[in-house]
C-alpha cells in the first residue's frame, strides 16, 4: 500500500471548460482508478465520520443541540436584515469599518481598494471559503498584491495551483508523497523526504517570513455576533490569529448568512462545529475579534453573492443555515470515492450539490445527480439542512429549466409513457431473454451496458410475477401477458 501510494500519480480534478457542464463522473472515475489515493481518501474521511460519531455519543443532548442550532439559524434567516444592521451598528461602535458587497466582484474591489489605500503589497490570509467563492486570490494577484495562504492545507493547494478539495481539510486528497513532491518543486524541500513532521515544519519555516513582513492580514469568519459586533474565527493551527494580529491591517471577508443574534447562541455552534467537522470537542483556537488591535485597523466585508436570492427561494433557503463543517462531505459515500475536486466547484459534496447550481445551473447541472439520495448527509448535519431533499428538488428545478442531459430526458419520457400503459408494460417485461433490451429503460438503455461493465447482470427469470399470478390466481385469465 505504501509503495503504491508513492508510485501513484495524484489524480487531478474535473476538467473545467468555461461554463460547459462539469463532468463530475469523468473526474470521479479517474479518482477511483487511482486506487491507493481513493482508498486513502475514503479511509481518512470515514475516520473523521467515526470520530464525529464518538463525540456525538458523548453528548446526551446532541439531537436537541442540532435542533436548537437549526432553529437559531432559521430564526436569524427570517430576520436577516435586522440582525445585519444590528451587527453593523455594534461593529462600528467597536471601531470596525463595515462594508457591504452585493457580489464577488464588488467584494474583491472593496478589498482591493482597502489594500491600495494602505499601499499594501502583500497579504497573508487564513482559509476562507468565501475568498475561494469570490476568486479573491487571483483578483488580488492581478492587482499586483502577493497573497500567501497560512493554513497548511490551503498553502499546499496554493503551491500546487489547485483548489481546496474540502471545506475543512483542503488537501485531504493528497498523500504525503504528493505533498513532498509539491514542496520539492516550490519550496526547495529535501527530495524524497515525506516525513509528515518534516513537511509541516518546512512549510512553517518557509511561510513565517511572509507572515512577519506582510502589509495586511485577512481572515474569513465562522460567526458574526450581532449583539456584540464581533467576528469569531475557528482554526486548529492558530494561523488566523497570526493573519489577524501580525500586520496592522486586518480584513475579514464573510458571508451575510454567518450571523447569529447573541453571544449565548455562539456556545451552541461552538459545541457543534468541531465535533461535526473533525470529531474533536473544540478547535484549537476559537478567536473572538471585537475590534482592531491597538494602533491597527479592522475591516469587515459583508458579502451577499447570491445569498439573498437564495433566501427568496423557499425550497433552497435552508442551505443558508450551513456552518461549513464539512460533515456532509465526510459521510457522503460518493464524495469519499470521487474526491472533492471532481465536482469542479468551490463547494463540493452534498452541500456543493445544492449550492453550486444556485450560482450557475448550466455549469453545475450534473452535480445534483452525483448522489444516491441516501440521506446520510442530512442526518449528520449539525444544523439539520434537508440536504437530500434539496438535491432532489434541484433535479426537478433543473428539469424545469431544460437542464437535463439528453439521455435522461429521452429515457424518462419513454419510461413515463411505458409505466402509464399497463398492457405495454407487461409486454415489455414479458420478453424473456429480450428483457435486457427493455430493462435498459432503467438499467442499460442506450448506454453501452452501463450495468454490466463492472457488475454481472441478473439472470432473466422464466416468467414475470404478472404471468405467474395470472396462471396461479386468475386461472390463466388476464390478458395476453
Amino acid at each position, binding site marked *: 500500500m505504501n509503495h503504491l501510494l508513492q508510485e501513484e500519480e495524484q489524480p487531478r480534478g474535473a476538467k473545467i471548460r468555461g461554463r460547459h457542464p462539469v463532468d463530475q*463522473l469523468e473526474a470521479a472515475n479517474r479518482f*477511483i482508478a487511482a486506487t491507493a489515493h481513493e482508498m486513502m481518501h*475514503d479511509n481518512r474521511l*470515514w475516520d473523521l465520520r467515526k470520530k464525529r460519531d464518538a463525540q*456525538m455519543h458523548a453528548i*446526551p443532548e*446532541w*439531537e436537541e443541540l442540532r435542533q436548537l442550532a437549526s432553529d437559531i439559524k432559521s430564526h436569524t434567516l427570517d430576520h436577516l436584515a435586522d440582525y445585519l444592521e444590528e451587527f453593523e451598528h455594534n461593529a462600528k461602535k467597536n471601531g470596525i469599518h463595515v462594508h457591504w458587497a452585493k457580489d464577488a466582484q464588488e467584494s474583491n474591489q472593496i478589498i482591493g481598494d482597502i489594500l491600495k489605500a494602505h499601499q499594501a503589497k502583500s497579504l497573508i490570509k487564513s482559509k476562507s471559503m468565501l475568498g475561494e467563492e469570490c476568486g479573491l486570490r487571483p483578483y488580488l494577484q492581478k492587482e499586483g498584491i502577493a497573497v500567501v495562504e497560512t493554513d497548511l492545507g490551503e498553502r499546499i493547494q496554493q503551491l500546487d495551483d489547485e483548489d481546496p478539495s474540502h471545506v475543512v481539510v483542503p488537501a485531504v486528497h493528497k498523500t504525503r508523497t504528493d505533498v513532498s513532491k509539491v514542496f520539492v518543486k516550490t519550496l526547495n524541500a529535501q527530495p524524497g523526504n515525506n516525513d509528515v513532521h518534516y513537511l509541516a515544519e518546512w512549510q512553517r519555516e518557509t511561510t513565517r517570513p511572509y507572515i512577519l513582513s506582510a502589509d495586511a492580514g485577512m481572515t474569513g469568519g465562522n460567526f458574526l455576533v450581532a449583539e456584540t459586533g464581533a467576528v469569531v474565527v475557528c482554526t486548529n493551527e492558530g494561523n488566523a490569529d497570526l493573519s489577524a494580529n501580525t500586520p496592522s491591517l486586518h480584513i475579514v471577508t464573510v458571508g451575510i448568512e454567518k450571523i447569529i443574534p447573541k453571544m449565548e447562541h455562539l456556545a451552541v455552534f461552538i459545541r457543534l462545529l468541531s465535533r461535526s467537522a473533525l470529531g474533536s470537542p473544540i478547535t484549537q483556537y476559537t478567536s473572538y475579534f471585537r475590534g482592531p488591535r491597538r494602533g491597527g485597523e479592522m475591516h469587515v466585508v459583508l458579502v451577499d453573492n447570491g445569498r439573498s436570492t437564495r433566501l427568496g427561494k423557499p425550497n433552497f433557503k435552508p442551505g443558508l443555515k450551513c456552518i461549513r463543517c464539512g460533515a456532509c462531505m465526510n*459521510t457522503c459515500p*460518493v464524495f469519499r*470515492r470521487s474526491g472533492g475536486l471532481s465536482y469542479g466547484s468551490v463547494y463540493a459534496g452534498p452541500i456543493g450539490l445544492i449550492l453550486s447550481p444556485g450560482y450557475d445551473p448550466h455549469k453545475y447541472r450534473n452535480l*445534483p*445527480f*452525483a*448522489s444516491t*439520495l*441516501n*440521506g*446520510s448527509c*442530512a*442526518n*449528520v448535519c449539525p444544523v439539520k439542512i434537508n440536504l437530500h431533499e434539496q438535491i*432532489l428538488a434541484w433535479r*426537478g*428545478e*433543473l*428539469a424545469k429549466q431544460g437542464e*437535463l442531459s439528453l439521455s*435522461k*430526458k429521452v429515457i424518462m*419520457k419513454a*419510461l*413515463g*409513457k411505458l*409505466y*402509464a*400503459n*399497463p398492457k405495454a*408494460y407487461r409486454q415489455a*417485461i414479458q420478453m424473456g431473454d429480450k*428483457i435486457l433490451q427493455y*430493462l435498459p429503460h*432503467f*438499467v442499460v438503455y442506450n*448506454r453501452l451496458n*452501463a*450495468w454490466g*461493465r*463492472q*457488475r*454481472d447482470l*441478473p439472470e*432473466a*427469470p422464466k416468467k*414475470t*410475477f*404478472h404471468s*405467474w*399470478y395470472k396462471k396461479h390466481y*386468475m386461472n390463466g385469465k388476464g390478458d395476453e401477458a
Partner: protein
Amino acid sequence: MEVGLFIPCYMDAMEPEVGISTLKLLERFNVKVVYPFDQTCCGQPMTNTGCEKEASATEALFVKNFAKFDYIVMPSGSCTNQVRHNMNAIEQTDEVTHVRTHSYDLVEFLHDILKVEAFPWANFPHKVAIHYNCNALRGLRHASMSERREAFFSKPKNLLEKIKGIEFVELQRPDECCGFGGTFSVFEEGVSAKMGRDKVLDQRNSGAEFVISADSSCLMHQKGCAQRMGIPLRYAHIAQVLNGDIR
C-alpha cells in the same frame, strides 16, 4: 382486512420469486391479498430524476389501482418511501392521500400492523448481515441510524430474530449506502460499482454467508458486484426468509 399487493417493476421482471414469497407470506396471516393486475411502477425513476411531469400518469395509475384497499403493501422500502413521501406529481385528492397514508413496506406491515410474533415454518441456520436500503432506513425509519444519537432499533432484525437458527454478524459500516441508488446505478456507473464493491468486501469480511434486505434492488446490484468479484456471498429478500422459501 383487504390488502392491495404492489410488486415493484424490477421485481416483477427480474425477481418474481420474491413477489411470490411476499404474497404467500401475507396469506399465512389470513389477510385477503389482491394483486391489481394493471399495476406497473410507483413512479420513482422519473421522480428521482426530477421529471415530475413524466411521473404524473404513472402515479395516477398507481392511485387508480390501489385507492380501494385498506392497506397497500409492497416488498420494497424504496417504493414505499416514494409513495409516502414523494408522490407529488398529481393533485393531492382524498384518494391520493388515502393511498399515501395507507401504503406500507412489508417489514412495517408485519412489524407494526400485523405485529407478527412467530414464523414457525421458517428455519435459517446461517450467518446473516442485514442490508438496509437507505430509503427504508432513513425515509421509513426501519432502524436506528448510525448518524443519530438514538437508541438502537431494527424492525427487520426484530422479525428475523424470530426465526430458528439465524445468527447475525455486523458490518464495519452498517448503514453505508451500497451505491445502487436507482437510476444512479447506470447514470453514475463508475461510482456506483465502486460503492458496491466496497459494500461486498465489508459483507465478506464480516463473515456473513447471507445478506438479507427488505429491498431487492440493492441486492441485485450487490449480487452483480459479488459475482463479478468471485465472492460467493448469497443474497435474499427478507420475504423469502420469513416465508421459509430460502433456508
